[in-house]
């Protein structure tokens, strides 16, 4: 079965760092870009950026550039979304998405940032 499994919910304080993960299985992880999508509480979907596992090439939209880092470890078929300094406005559910023939979404990771 093709699936993306994300890491569990996180509760953090402003200024803390965080890395969440997304592990792919059931398909050739290296051949498909991994996208990250944000959904703030009660709001719509926002595409943040993506990574090509083949060469770790990334592209971000301006509103996320410099605030998050997308990376990948192909040896364990896992992509990451990382913050070095969280803000309260990072409180959201984050989804990873891939398209290995049939589009697949992770189950989402809820990140809560509160003092």
């Amino acid at each position: 079965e093709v699936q993306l499994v994300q890491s569990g919910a996180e509760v953090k304080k402003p200024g803390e760092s965080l890395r969440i993960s997304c592990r792919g299985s059931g398909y050739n992880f290296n051949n498909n870009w991994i996208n990250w999508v944000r959904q703030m509480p009660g709001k719509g979907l926002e595409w943040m950026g993506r990574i090509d596992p083949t060469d770790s090439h990334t592209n971000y939209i301006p509103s996320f550039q410099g605030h998050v880092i997308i990376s990948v470890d192909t040896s364990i078929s896992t992509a990451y979304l990382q913050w070095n300094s969280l803000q309260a406005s990072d409180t959201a559910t984050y989804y990873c998405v891939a398209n290995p023939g049939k589009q697949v979404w992770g189950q989402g990771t809820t990140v809560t940032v509160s003092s």
Partner: protein
Amino acid sequence: QSVLTQSPSASGTPGQKVSISCSGSGSNIGINKVDWYQQLPGTAPKLVMHSNDQRPSGVPDRFSGSKSGTSASLAISGLQSEDEADYYCAAWDASLNGLLFGGGTKLTVL
């Protein structure tokens, strides 16, 4: 603020046909294909239409999509209670070099 514009809400009664529209511009819908997502409460979004009018396997043929110029629409015929969800359009934007989502339309089945 989304550059792809959707009406915030739509509604219909069981069996009716409803259409959800998505308006963009020449840098996104005008030159790229449109996808549509369905999001049921508390769940991850699900692709229900890709490349303007292509249904992924498993999506009922009650769902249809179209595109004209810088606008696109998703139609659902024979409306059912399980269709009640949020629907989002999406298209790649050449200026942004990224994927844009519409603001979403909340579909209510009365």
